């Protein structure tokens, strides 16, 4: 069976060299990214949730808190899959602001002898707190000016406690 496949590949290389080169380039690029572990590619897209998870006292999620109420802001009152955006945006803000030069891929870039030493991404990111209510308004929600992001802990549909975001 292997010989049959090898012969088929040889025939493609002979009859359609450009397509063969294109296919090789795509597979090679994805393969390199996978081996170098620098970025998730189609070969690693669904590998999320591969690691074992263990019981915790609370399961945390970064959410806005209005008027120091101690209660999480409900981001699930939105149309379609907007709630995913409202889960992703604060979480990524928290990850990026704590990363070296606000690029969480820097440790992986270093392995390849590269480095993102930009000096402006972190400055720009400081505007996130002001921008988030603007985005909320675009998707039909409103939040008071006196809000902040907190790490809210839940378990079995119950609110447990909240913590401030980790410092940089």
């Amino acid at each position, binding site marked *: 069976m292997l010989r049959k496949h090898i012969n088929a590949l040889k025939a493609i290389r002979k009859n359609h060299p450009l397509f063969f080169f294109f296919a090789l380039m795509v597979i090679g690029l994805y393969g390199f990214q996978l081996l170098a572990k620098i970025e998730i590619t189609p070969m690693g897209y669904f590998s999320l949730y591969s690691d074992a998870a263990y019981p915790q006292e609370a399961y945390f999620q970064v959410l806005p808190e209005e008027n120091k109420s101690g209660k999480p802001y409900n981001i699930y009152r939105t149309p379609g899959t*907007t709630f995913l955006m409202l889960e992703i945006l604060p979480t990524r803000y928290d990850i990026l602001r704590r990363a070296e030069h606000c690029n969480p891929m820097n440790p992986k870039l270093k392995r390849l002898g590269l480095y993102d030493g930009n000096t402006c991404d972190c400055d720009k990111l400081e505007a996130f707190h002001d921008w988030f209510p603007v985005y909320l308004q675009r998707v039909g929600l409103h939040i008071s000016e006196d809000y902040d992001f907190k790490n809210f802990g839940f378990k079995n*549909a119950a609110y447990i406690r909240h913590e401030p975001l980790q410092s940089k």
Partner: protein
Amino acid sequence: MNLYSLNDKIRRRFADAVFWKQCVLSVIALALIYFWYSGMMLHHVYDSPFQYKGSDITYWMFHWLRIPHLVLYNGLTAMVFDILLILSFISSIAFIDKRGFTIVSGIFILVYQVLFNYKIGYPTHHLFGFHFALLPFYFKKDLFQLSVRFAGILSCLAYAFAGFSKLYHKGWMVYHSFSDILQSQHAAYFYFHPEALRTKFCLWMIEHPGMGFTFFLSAMILQLSFIAGLFTRRYNKLLALFIVLFHLMDWWLMNLGVFMGMTVMAWLFLYKEKVVGAS
């Protein structure tokens, strides 16, 4: 109409590249309209403070070429791009025989993907299935079947590697792991929607880790079964069904309905090269 002629008609349809092209382009156009409704277009995020580049050369190229500054110059330019993106797919359906329109749509959706990720600070991956599904329509007729096979192989690699990753990282060896994944995935959702059907079902699964374990193991085996698709087309119908099942499960259990558009890749496994027994 007897069963034989119905079967024959389905076979003819499944061998019709134009039929599949219409299906794929329509699904993507509808998905884009849904993304608009969900606040996921460029004009929703054009002014976000993120400018994520990560370690992917594509993002850096876009950044160096100042493409984000051009497309996301202001809300209007971003909205014009979003409209053109959707219109490009509608035009591709209207001019189904013109390959150029489909290539332009493909370029538009790639630009959209990179800029969207750039502005939300995260390399989302709910669009790669669209690229795979569109790939065969970029090529001339003599390369069409070969490119269908190649796109099918890429899809198989995506799922098979995911299964392999689960196997390698040993999450499946921890009995209650999936229960904790569900708790983490829906932490706030459960709190805000305690009466929702999804909440009740997931909480029941959390209370019965054996069910969660079985589900997780089944998903891993389902993903690993795509290895077969790399070597033979014998199980293609089954793999098409697996794609749909996997994303239905992803939507129901993980609340990731945004990935449902990926089911469009199933066409790569349903396309028949020849109509056997057609009269």
